[in-house]
């Protein structure tokens, strides 16, 4: 089954936010933002800009009718700065003019006086200064003290992981159109239409039912449009509300890169205790999360870090502490993996560290500690299933030297400067929003009298194929051809109070809601058909290939006739359904519970070739064995695995955020200076195999979520590079700090004291 939007995409016919025809009286917004990371505003003079040609209105915090507040979990983020600024790019004023250029020029003519204050950009420094977003949290299990007594070896160290720019190809944007009765209709490139609606209502001080948010599709998001699509949409709504004209706000690439948050950089301390045989008994870790200037989703992201502190391993004694630190960077935010990649990087660093000290292979330690059915996580949940172990074994059988795998030879040793490195990366990722209340979804299904079907859900299509899967669910449940199904735009008037499309749950939850709604209609249709066809009581009716069957035998009652007759009999052909993920709970006072509906697991083997002369590398091959359950759509799921993998490789290698020091001004603020993987960066060979699996009841039709977990396969590339370096310079102590840029590679190869 193909991605249903793809035929539009390849013709350039898909409509994104900026592809809508705008009314002639549309106003374009441009922003004045803070040029400094921290300061007190002492003067704001908009008079000159307001008088410029084409300028219609300039909006500051004083023009906000309701609350000047866009915070989500913690209300700590103003829409427009009032008396202080806390990061470069913090919005101060919005200029509305009749062309984008006039708006931009006028924004540059606003007088802004700021007394600059000291800025903190390092999370550990922020921690020392007591600049915290929330109090530290600790997840623990067993007893570190008892465990340490049984350890033969204890190693401690530090691991740092860098941030990551989302680089969705479509930058942040929205437009808002005033409607009658004081209503505003917003077209936003957002993963969270209901959140945009809620915040717009809060800022405008009007009821939520006056705000309609419509989302057609997103040109990529990856978490970057979960919370951070909101300010621009709310600004457009505010502009439309205040001027009575349509307003569009669209960030340029540079603005988007400079002003919006990224994946959280983490700096972490770890202590790992093992027995001689490589069994890990103790794991102690403290994460210092660089939250940026406002909380955004940082606390939820840190929570997921704590959930995944032990990665794909069982460790009996654990103490994991997370600190969300407030710094003067743009608020960092959700990004595929949501804190889990940072946790897994620390875990793998410690294992790599131990393997080096003990003279073992990293995989020997990994294999000895891999999660088994019945093992407990520090948060109280029990690990189920054998898919992780089976994926591990499959990959090892394929790649491990002494099991006859393909990596038996080392063609690059000896006289050449090329070295190979191989690393296995097992992944275990929990599926559900860690905030239990978000695990709900709705669907509204209409069957029209001609037999065509419209489905509205809370899911947002951003390329991940969720609408394709929802159409598949509707077609399969109703027993009709998929060509009859249209998945509508995501709209708050059809799907209310929805959770953002995030946490890999979009297809699971919205698919299950769709299935329930379709089943409800199907039951009515079958009940009607029983009467209509006068079949004996006790017969079993079903719809198969658009035809009613009775006790498994085909009849000549076709879908279209059935639907038409059911309508004439005055039976509803519409249904709305709600889905709440069952059996999940979490008690944050004890930090125990069952926060996840299930886990997604898999293993990747990554092979790299390092050029020790130039300090460059290629990823030769990645073999992935992944559990997608009974995949709804293997083509779409494969695309998710491959795409996430390369994003993960980018995160640990070439994607490097560079800032001025001190000051925290982003230097890598364009595609010329922030490099994401291109087609040449993709591994020469990527093999993705889906494990035979029973799947999960919480997934739709026994499928499993796929969006985020494969990102973490990319982490293997970092350690494969360390392995290649070690084969060139035995004993090299490279430290653990992403990204492994070409610069870092060469500097380390030259002298491993070059890097902290």
């Amino acid at each position, binding site marked *: 089954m193909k991605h249903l939007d793809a035929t539009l995409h390849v013709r350039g016919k898909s409509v994104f936010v900026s592809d809508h025809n705008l009314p002639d009286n549309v106003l374009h917004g441009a922003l004045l933002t803070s040029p400094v990371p921290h300061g007190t505003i002492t003067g704001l003079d908009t008079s000159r800009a307001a008088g410029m040609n084409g300028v219609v209105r300039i909006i500051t915090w004083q023009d906000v009718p309701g609350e000047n507040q866009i915070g989500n979990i913690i209300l700590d983020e103003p829409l427009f700065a009032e008396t202080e600024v806390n990061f470069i790019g913090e919005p101060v004023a919005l200029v509305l003019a009749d062309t984008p250029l006039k708006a931009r020029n006028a924004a540059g003519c606003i007088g802004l006086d700021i007394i600059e204050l000291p800025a903190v950009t390092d999370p550990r420094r922020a921690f020392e200064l007591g600049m915290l977003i929330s109090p530290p949290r600790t997840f623990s299990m067993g007893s570190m003290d008892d465990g340490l007594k049984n350890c033969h070896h204890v190693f401690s160290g530090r691991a740092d992981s860098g941030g990551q720019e989302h680089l969705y190809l479509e930058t942040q944007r929205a437009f808002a159109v005033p409607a009658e009765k004081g209503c505003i209709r917003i077209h936003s490139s957002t993963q969270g239409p209901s959140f945009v609606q809620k915040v717009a209502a809060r800022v405008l001080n009007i009821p939520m039912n006056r705000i309609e948010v419509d989302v057609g599709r997103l040109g990529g998001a990856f978490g970057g449009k979960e919370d951070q699509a909101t300010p621009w949409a709310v600004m457009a709504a505010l502009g439309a509300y205040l001027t009575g004209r349509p307003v569009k706000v669209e960030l340029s*690439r540079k603005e988007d890169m400079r002003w919006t948050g990224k994946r959280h950089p983490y700096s972490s301390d770890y202590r790992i205790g093992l027995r001689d045989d490589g069994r890990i008994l103790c794991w102690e870790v403290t994460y210092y999360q660089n939250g940026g200037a406002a909380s955004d989703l940082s606390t939820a992201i840190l929570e997921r870090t704590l959930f995944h502190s032990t990665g794909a391993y069982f460790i009996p004694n654990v103490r994991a502490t997370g600190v969300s630190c407030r710094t003067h960077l743009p608020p960092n935010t959700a990004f595929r993996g949501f804190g889990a990649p940072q946790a897994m990087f620390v875990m793998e660093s410690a294992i790599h560290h131990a393997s080096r000290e003990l003279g073992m292979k990293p995989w020997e330690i990994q294999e000895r500690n891999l999660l088994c059915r019945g093992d407990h996580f520090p948060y109280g949940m029990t690990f189920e299933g054998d898919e992780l172990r089976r994926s591990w074994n499959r990959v090892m059988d394929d790649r491990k030297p002494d099991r006859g795998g393909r990596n038996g030879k080392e063609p690059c040793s000896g006289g050449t400067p090329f070295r190979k490195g191989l690393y296995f990366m097992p992944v275990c990722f929990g599926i559900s929003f860690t905030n239990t209340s978000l695990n709900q979804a709705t669907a509204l299904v209409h069957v029209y009298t001609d037999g065509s079907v419209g489905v509205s859900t809370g899911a947002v299509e951003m390329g991940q194929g969720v609408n394709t899967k929802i159409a598949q669910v509707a077609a399969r449940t109703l027993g009709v051809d998929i060509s009859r199904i249209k998945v509508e735009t995501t709209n708050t008037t059809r799907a209310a109070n929805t959770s953002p499309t995030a946490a890999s749950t979009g297809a699971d939850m919205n698919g299950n809601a769709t299935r329930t709604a379709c089943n409800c209609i199907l039951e009515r249709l079958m009940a009607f058909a029983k009467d209509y066809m006068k079949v004996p009581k006790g017969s079993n009716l079903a719809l198969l290939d658009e035809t009613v069957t009775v006790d498994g035998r085909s009849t000549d009652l076709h879908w279209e006739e059935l639907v038409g007759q059911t309508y004439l009999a005055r039976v509803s052909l519409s249904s709305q359904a709600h889905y709440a993920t069952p059996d999940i709970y979490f008690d944050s006072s004890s930090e125990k519970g069952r926060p996840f509906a299930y886990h997604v697991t898999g293993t990747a083997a990554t092979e790299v070739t390092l050029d020790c002369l130039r300090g460059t590398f290629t990823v030769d091959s990645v073999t992935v064995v992944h559990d997608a359950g009974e995949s709804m759509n293997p083509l779409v799921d494969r695309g998710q695995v491959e795409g996430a993998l390369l994003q993960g490789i980018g995160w640990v290698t070439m994607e490097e955020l560079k800032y001025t020091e001190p000051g925290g001004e982003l230097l890598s603020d364009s595609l010329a200076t922030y490099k994401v993987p291109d087609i040449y960066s993709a591994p020469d060979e990527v093999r993705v195999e889906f494990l035979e699996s029973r799947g999960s009841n919480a997934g739709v039709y026994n499928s499993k979520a796929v969006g985020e977990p494969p990102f973490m396969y990319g982490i293997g590339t970092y350690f494969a590079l360390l392995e290649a370096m070690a084969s060139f310079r035995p004993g090299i102590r490279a430290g653990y700090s992403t990204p492994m840029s070409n610069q870092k590679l060469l500097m380390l190869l030259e002298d491993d004291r070059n890097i902290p």
Partner: protein
Amino acid sequence: MTVSFLLNGKKYGTSLPPGAVALDLIRNETQLTGTKEGCREGDCGACTVLLGTPGPDGVRYSAVNSCILPVGELSGRHLVTIEGVSPEEGLSTVQEPFVQHGASQCGFCTPGMIMSLTGYLLSTTEPDVSGAVGALGGNICRCTGYISVKRAAETVVNSTGPSPARSPFSREHLKHLVSRNVIPSYFLNIEKILAQSKEPEERDSAGTADYIKVAGGTDLFATGGEELVRRNLRFLSRNPQLRYVRNEGEGLFRIGAASTVEDLIESGIFKGTGNLHDSLRLVSSVQVRSRATVGGNIVNASPIGDLTIIMLALKAVLRISGASGHREVPLSKFFRGYKIIDLQPDELLESVCFKKSGPGEMVNFEKVSMRKHMDIASVNTAAVFRVTNRTVEEAIISAGGVAPVPAILNRTCDYLRNSEICTGTVLDACETAMEEISPITDVRGTAEYKRLLTGRLLKTHFLELFPEILEPGDIL
């Protein structure tokens, strides 16, 4: 003043200023919204379109970034957007495999990829997979990881097959592509229509008013944006006196300053000269190489221009014309300081002349950047050695990113003259080079890294050119 051209199948005139960019014309004026804006500086390829230029051998099509393509350049040409390659019904041979292989997820980069691949098929009679993948080197996708894109590209190549035509610019080739459903049949009429509609005369406003000379404009329009809309521009790219690659005999070659990087690749001028021919593909992306010129690379005076570094090592001489006639300047004397060049405002760089390499000469180019392709170097360097009996008679080594100007490593070259090639010489030469350069810390690397990298790339020159004499293990 109207700029007239063919937009897809129809004549089109715009009154936008010549310095506006084609992307804005396409999206805002014609409302063909299939072309997307991703970065507005030629670094993502989402806005890729085809630009067809009529010539004596037919219409030549190149994939270019419309975000850095000035409207003035459209005059008399054929501009093709995604709407212009889509069949009325169904999908083209390029489009269909992207659907089949799941090579389009969010879809924002997809139209650009379709245009790049279509452009590739228009530029070759013998498509192959590596060429097709290379044609997508300028298209950034954040969703797919490119694996499915490569599968799609392979299918596209196989479905298109080799063309019976002799030249990719010929009508026969277009017919082949029409028959394979790669392009719509209106392409067959384009040459005729372009010939009928007379191209407006080049307005040579030289000497009249304040104007900016635009060659490829790939750097100018990536950074200059809104100001260029108001300025007078003089476009150089279609002046045949500035665009040629000529063998002048006795090993001497002359390149017109407005020749593009793709022109150099197509001419094959550097085939057999060390690794230079292949290295040209390390210069940005095909979209940029189709526009970026040799002269532009030189007068832009970036300390890190790839072509400049190559030309420096080849001891290129520049021919410059001005009010008082012509003069010649060695490239090595052209750069006076950071972005300061020996060129008066009323002068024009006309051509670049150099000897490819003489007997006994060996050439190598090295470049390391944050990302191997479509990136500006952290350090790049070219080396030309003349060696007899293991002894260096002459060495010219240039390096970029190590000084305010593209530099010749003079002290290193002096040291190498009359030295025997051996491990000791290499190590000493590297030391000399690392001492004589003065890199600065910037977004492409720290000064310390660039110094180290320069030494490493020097070692690489030696190892690449003298593998039978040197052992990597000894040198590293």
